[in-house]
């Protein structure tokens, strides 16, 4: 049997804080297959960010096993397996958009010519073709976040981890970015892990929705989407969509009562 791209078995993580231990993750079992779009949803403090950071090797689980592409998260990071998109675009004001996208490429030692080619390619992917020479402050918040997605795609990682990437943006911009993200996912065949607070966003984007609950952070329910891969924005008015959203809401409520 093929092992999933991201494979978590009994992952636990306890933070030692001054106020005593905080159990951020408890017995998380999850397999994510190649090409899936997996959303993590749940109330604040249920460990969504922590789990994503474990996958990225930014936190080390205190129990269980976690592999990424069959490697430890640390090895996977060194093998450039994933790109990580934070909630804030985090573009450097002293670099142009192209310069910002080159940043990881410079660090990873790509040749100058290769850098140029890749910048052009990913700018096209996020529909910012003519913006390479602009500085971050000349772009709207949504465009900045697209640039930060381009930066995460520049070095061909086949996994994209996104922690509430559109959380700070308004609804209209968000809808547009969601649509673009789906198109990008279809074109690039990436495996995507996506943290969100929004039920419609999770249902619209995902092939799999992981509902999490807090204290201690754990998976309450994993919902496989029944929606087709091709998703126009108005699919959100379909009965199927509404039924899925309802299931997610129920899952969140049960997790909360528990």
């Amino acid at each position, binding site marked *: 049997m093929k092992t999933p791209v991201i494979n978590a078995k009994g992952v636990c993580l306890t933070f030692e804080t001054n106020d005593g231990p905080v159990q951020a993750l408890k017995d998380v079992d999850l397999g994510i297959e190649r090409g899936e779009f997996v959303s993590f949803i749940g109330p604040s403090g249920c460990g969504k960010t922590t789990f994503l950071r474990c996958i990225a090797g930014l936190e080390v689980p205190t129990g269980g096993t976690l592999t990424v592409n069959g490697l430890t998260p640390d090895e996977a990071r060194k093998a450039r397996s*994933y790109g990580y998109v934070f909630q804030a675009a985090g573009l450097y004001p*002293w670099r142009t958009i192209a310069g910002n996208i080159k940043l990881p490429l410079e660090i990873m030692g790509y040749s100058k010519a290769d850098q140029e080619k890749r910048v052009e390619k990913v700018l096209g992917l996020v529909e910012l073709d003519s913006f390479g020479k602009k500085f971050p402050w000349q772009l709207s918040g949504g465009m900045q976040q697209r640039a930060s997605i381009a930066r995460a795609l520049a070095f061909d990682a086949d996994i994209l981890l996104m922690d509430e990437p559109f959380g700070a943006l308004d609804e209209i911009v968000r809808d547009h970015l969601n649509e673009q993200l789906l198109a990008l996912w279809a074109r690039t065949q990436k495996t995507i892990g996506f943290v969100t607070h929004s039920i419609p966003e999770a249902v619209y984007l995902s092939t799999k929705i992981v509902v999490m609950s807090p204290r201690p952070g754990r998976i309450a329910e994993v919902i496989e989407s029944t929606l087709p891969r091709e998703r126009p924005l108005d699919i959100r008015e379909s009965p199927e969509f509404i039924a899925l959203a309802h299931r997610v809401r129920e899952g969140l409520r049960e997790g909360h009562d528990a």
Partner: protein
Amino acid sequence: MTKVVPVLTVIVALVLIWYAAAVGMNAQWARDQAARAETTLGFGELVVDTWSQDRPVLPAPHQVAQGLYDSVLAIKPTSKRSLVYHGWITLSATLAGFGIGTLAGIALAVGIVHSRAMDMSVMPWAIASQTIPILAIAPMIIVVLNSIGISGLLPKAIISAYLSFFPVVVGMVKGLRAPDAMQLDQMRTWSATNSQTFWRLRLPSSMPYLFASLKVAIAAALVGTIVAELPAGATRGLGARLLSGSYYGQTVQIWSALFAAAALAAALVVIVGLIERGVLKRMGMAQ
């Protein structure tokens, strides 16, 4: 325009207070002179006398202005009595000291940010170094360096650097630590080395902090140089002018040198400020 009126009002008020103080402080000498000549002075005569003495306790503003004119504009800049000449001597040592202090400050800050041992050990010494009165150690440094044959610009530059490195260390440590956890995590996701993180993130992020401290540092460097020019024997530089003025009771000379030093300090701070504006604007970091 709206700023000019209040500023002018303050200046006029200060000049008036100054003239009044000159009358008060120089009156004793005027009366003594009159008593010796067995005459008495009317109020008008007293005022005129207090504003035109050769060696007043407090020279009047126009006397200082005249002194500045005589020693800046009405004299060859290469003359030993020109404040331009002495100002240049002081300025060159100040810039050398500022350069040394800035480089030392940045180097220490880099060490402090990257090494826990240095973080724990250097800062207390840096702070202690600033609690020693500069007036107390400046002569020792000058004498010690003189005795091993080092004189002229370098000893002054070292004292100047001693005062100017400190604000740079404090500002740079803060600046190099300015990147937030998210920015540092982002570097980690790319497996960036410490030196890559330093050159691409920490150093550019520190620029606003660096320039804020450079403005303090350059003023401190000037103070350091002037103090270093005070010990007996120095004949060149604004500090030497201050000291020789006080030896010979040449108060006009003291005040002229003081004003020259203040103008120099202001000019240096303004220049650093202009460079700051230019650099931060180009980096997209101007506030």
